[in-house]
């Protein structure tokens, strides 16, 4: 394998990791602050993608589509937080899993009912549709590169929000001791709605960005949701930093595993079985990584013991 191909795949891994971070950030915040496990996070990702596809089809503008994805997912997030999710904070995890699983059923079938079973398509904007040449002569799709940039900007914004702003202080205080900050006069209910809507908006945004590479369809959120779970288990639940490190680890491991493993097995197996064994193992690699992390750190890399 040439070094150029290697770097290109590293960039693909980075792009995947950045996407996973957008998805995991909300999930880990919601768990850290409210103690809620939210399976319906994948549905918010799907809602963002569908909103973007619908607006792009109506207006032809990709920027408007992205804004629509943020707005739609944040709105849907706020709505379910106000009506259903807030009843679940005091419940045990089983209730949370079931109620949010029920929300997935409702959202998925509701979307299927509104948009039909056929996938929608969201086109990459013309400006970004071609490849760009990076230093060293690497050809890389401009759109994927902009996803990396946008994702890193959002990640930076999240760190700034959590560590530098007043809302961030409240969020961190909420993670540490929610009774205390309620006693100090912070409207905890509003804070919770805000955090949930923020996480939802990030998930919806990720859905819209990925929707332009893949197709926009019902059920697109769940595979990503499960990867996001792997990410936050690796990173440590509740830690934004952990989510970032975990997302990049999973992104790189998955992308590189799919490329490298079949080639490694080809060194000592015949070609056809090398591809079979290699790709089967590659599809399990991130879970093996997760198991490995858990053996040494059952609370994840940055989890509080």
């Amino acid at each position: 394998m040439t070094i150029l191909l290697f770097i290109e795949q590293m960039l693909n891994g980075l792009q995947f990791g950045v996407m996973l971070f957008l998805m995991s950030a909300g999930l880990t915040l919601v768990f850290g602050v409210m103690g809620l496990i939210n399976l319906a996070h994948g549905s918010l990702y799907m809602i963002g993608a569908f909103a973007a596809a619908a607006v792009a089809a109506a207006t032809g503008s990709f920027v408007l589509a992205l804004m629509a994805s943020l707005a739609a997912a944040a709105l849907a997030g706020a709505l379910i937080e106000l009506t259903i999710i807030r009843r679940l904070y005091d419940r045990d995890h089983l209730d949370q899993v079931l109620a949010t699983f029920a929300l997935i059923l409702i959202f998925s079938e509701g979307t299927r009912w509104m948009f039909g079973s056929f996938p929608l398509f969201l086109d990459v904007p013309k400006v970004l549709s071609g490849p760009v040449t990076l230093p060293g002569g690497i050809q890389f799709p401009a759109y994927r590169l902009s996803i990396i940039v946008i994702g890193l900007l959002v990640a930076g914004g999240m760190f700034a929000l959590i560590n530098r702003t007043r809302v961030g202080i409240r969020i961190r205080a909420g993670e540490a001791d929610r009774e205390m900050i309620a006693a100090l006069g912070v409207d905890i209910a509003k804070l919770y709605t805000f955090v949930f809507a923020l996480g939802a908006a990030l998930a919806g945004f990720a859905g819209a960005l990925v929707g332009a590479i893949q197709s926009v369809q019902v059920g697109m959120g769940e595979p990503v949701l499960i990867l996001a779970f792997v990410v936050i288990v690796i990173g440590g639940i509740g830690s934004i930093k952990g989510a970032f490190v975990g997302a990049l680890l999973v992104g790189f491991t998955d992308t590189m595993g799919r490329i490298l493993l079949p080639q490694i097995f080809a060194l000592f197996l015949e070609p056809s079985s090398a591809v079979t064994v290699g790709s089967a193992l590659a599809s399990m690699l991130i879970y093996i990584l997760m198991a490995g992390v858990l053996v040494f750190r059952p609370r994840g890399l940055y989890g509080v013991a």
Partner: protein
Amino acid sequence: MTRETWINVASLAVLLGVPLWALMADEPFIITLATRAAIFALAGVGLNLALGTGGLVSLGHAAFFGIGGYAMGILASHAQSYAPIMEAPFLIEGTKSMPVIWLVAMVTSALAALAIGVLSLRTSGVYFIMITLAFGQMVYYFAISWPAYGGEDGLSIYVRNGFPGLNTLVPIQFFGLCFVILCLVLLLMNAIHKSAFGLALSAARQNETRVLSVGLKPYHLRLVAFVISGAVTGLAGALFADLNRFVSPTMLSWQMSGEIIIFIIIGGVGRLFGPVIGAMIFILLEHTLGGLSEFWHVYLGALLLGIVLFAKGGLIGAFAGREKAHD
């Protein structure tokens, strides 16, 4: 007899009565539905030991359900093509005999549960939920990317496997087989609940510190429960694959794990017959609502949401009242 016992007896009577009625009325499809209900109930009864008694919210039990299914698929497909599974170092051939298939299904899913349990049980709470889900997905993706046994398309067999003395292709006979297995497993679970092991497992759920302080090891108790639970769900998977004469990665999907939990929730968590009633209601809903609307999962979701938010004990809880407290 308590009210719960009456409900339990009634649920078994309905599960047995409906297909018998269907036999008289010549409605083989209803018998198949009842068989599905019995098999789903069995899967739920398996999970209920971990989830209800042990308090282990496993969102990855579809892995065991599917492994059981694939045990059937692999053994039977080798038997029908007369190709041995393995020749060296010793010969292993496929089989069409149900008892052998069940044994293999239970052993393989128990081993899978042991491997997953050893790692997952190091954690608890929400970590446990996510990790079992992730391991379930691992098995799912493995099944999809491994082409030898159908990959994404799954594996079908031509003729249902045989059981000595029965013609399993006759719907009522196959139903009878599944029903008897369900009853036997219910008896076994009842015995486990009353045994010292069952009480200790239940105690580990209620108060881990106390269990530790009397010298019991919650980790070991939970691991044993998880393995038994996986084996029973694997047996249900083998039966389910035999019912459809087809096994595919769908059986391993995480929606399947969610559905197995739903059976338990509708009926009542930790109740012996909770999954039996839950599975019957689920099949009833699937059949009636599925006929009314293509989008019946919306109603299922709404019902589930209602049960979780407003009726915690499930149906048995609503009719039989609170469970007797042991402490």
